[in-house]
């Protein structure tokens, strides 16, 4: 299988804590990967490095043969827009925008015309099963629906990989399961690479691979 992300001797210090400590691994195209570990083990930090939200202190990340650690902040923003989708535990929607607009947010700074933008947003909404709530506002949606909007927003640019940091953490187990099934089906059906942080062992079990972190390092694979 071809490697999408290659991580070499990656380290990141936050304050006085070595949040990520000399990690090396790789993720293949089309994989569904779970990252697990105790609270404070560095899962979120690792995910933010992989997705280009933060820069590493040492080591190297090759994303599709691009060294993202060397990019400027603006280049990283463009990299994120083009290549990755990110979903957080809190849904992080813009309260003044309705569902389609929230989904289309990553396209706002591009030159794409309005019609095409709306078409893309609608298609993305459909892929997460949100066809008929398009003109609702975030405060009118349930938690599960809000997370679907966040996923649809992450998918709008056809990313190579979707990073999800405890995407079910704020949801009850039933809704969480639905979200998980959605991520699974995206992985199976369109071959989307998914890297997901989760505490839930039953969720981790359905993944192709688990990366276990402890004190910033990899425990075992």
């Amino acid at each position, binding site marked *: 299988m071809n490697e999408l992300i290659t991580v070499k001797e990656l380290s990141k210090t936050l304050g006085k804590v070595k949040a990520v400590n000399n990690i090396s691994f790789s993720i293949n195209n089309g994989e569904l990967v779970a990252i697990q570990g105790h609270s404070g083990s560095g899962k979120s930090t690792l995910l933010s490095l992989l997705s280009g939200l933060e820069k590493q202190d040492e080591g190297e990340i090759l994303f599709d043969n691009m060294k993202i650690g060397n990019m400027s902040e603006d280049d990283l*923003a463009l990299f994120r827009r083009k290549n990755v989708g990110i979903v957080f535990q809190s849904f992080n929607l813009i309260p*003044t925008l309705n569902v389609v607009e929230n989904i289309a947010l990553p396209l706002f700074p591009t030159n794409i015309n309005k019609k095409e933008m709306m078409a893309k947003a609608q298609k993305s909404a459909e892929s997460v099963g949100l066809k008929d709530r398009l003109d609702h506002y975030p405060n009118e949606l349930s938690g599960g629906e809000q997370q679907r909007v966040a996923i649809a927003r992450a998918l709008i640019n056809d990313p190579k990989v979707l990073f999800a940091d405890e995407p079910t953490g704020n949801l009850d187990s039933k809704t969480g399961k639905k979200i998980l099934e959605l991520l699974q089906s995206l992985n199976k059906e369109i071959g989307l690479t998914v890297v997901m942080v989760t505490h839930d062992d039953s969720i981790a079990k359905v993944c192709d691979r688990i990366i276990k972190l402890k004190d910033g390092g990899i425990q075992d694979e």
Partner: protein
Amino acid sequence: MLRYAVKELVKRKKKYALNILVISLVVVLLITLTSLNTAYKDASKLPFESIHSSIIVQKNGNVAENTTGALVSCSLAPIKKDLISNIKSLDGVSEVSYGLSLWVFDEDTFKRVLGVNWDDSLGRKIKSKIYVGSLPQSDEKIIVEKTFAQENNIILNQKIIISGEAFIVAGLSETSGKDIVSSDIYANLKPVQEMAYNSKNLQDTETFDRSDINIIFVDAKQTKVADVSEELDSLLNKQDSFSGKTPTGQKIGSYSIYTPESFENQISSIFNISDKIVLLLTIVILIGTALILFKSMAHAITERKKEFGIMKAVGFTNKDLKKQLTLEILIQVIVGFLIGILISLMVLFALSGLTVSVNIPWELNPYPHFLASNPSSVNTIQTYPLPIQFNPQQVILPMLSILIISFLTIHILLKNIGKLKPMEVLKYE
């Protein structure tokens, strides 16, 4: 992005209402201030408009020792008539008219007498103000000003004695009130010149030739007024043989050249203060605006930190964020401006009902200081409707300053957003 900007503003309109209110208030204040200021300045030109003359030339002379018979005011010394042809040949001069203004101390009353040519621009101006009777056809006929006539019970066709000469009242005029050069009696130039020539007291004070005059009106095109007045100054005041000073401080023998501008400077002492106040107020208003806008924008941005984090996370560059913010603020500025201009127009309309009093300098309408009270015909204070108007140029200052304030604010605040790490704001709920 425009759509997002509009939605942001509409959905959180309460937050942005303050900005828009502040912007429109500033526009109203600045436009009203500058309009009032220019209106008061323009008001000082109004007396000139009513006399339809651009430039007035007078000569400064001596003060008479005693006050009997016909005299000239020390600001209206005799001028040789030859000067007229010299002035006429100056570049930019379109018409020259002249007269002889006398103070006549008769035993019964004090009279101001102005001798004119009825067919030049000064004469035509007075002619147009005659409301009873007819134009003096001969030298013994005169026009009497209405207020003076009423105060002295003078009626049409009455015979009155001026400095020992008999005249007949041919008509009454209504010239006082709005004019710089007004008089109690208007006569043909010739008999007034004779009167001056024959006045022993006048000849003791000044040397007066039969053809002398003492006031010249030079008409010039609006754009040439400054040039012509300079030419006049170098033509008339090039000799520096002046000695002594008049009671009002002019050099004896020198010529005073009054243009609307010089006139404005003379009477603007009150308005100069207002100029400074306007400047001060403008600065205070702008600083206040800067502070309020900065605070309110900073507040709005801090509250939206998380949103900016989200935008960055999904691929907005700092430049994209700047565009977004600029768009939002630009919309506020435009809306604030439109509202501000609308309110300004209403305020200016309301203010156009005001009147303004203009104090005319003594030299331009001399009246003996020692006469206890000025008769009402000598109006040194004139009242006009305030010439206030909306000048689109007045929008430029508030527009520029608000735009500069806004963009400076964005620039400063963006430094903070630029440093913002998406992870830090997005990690926690």
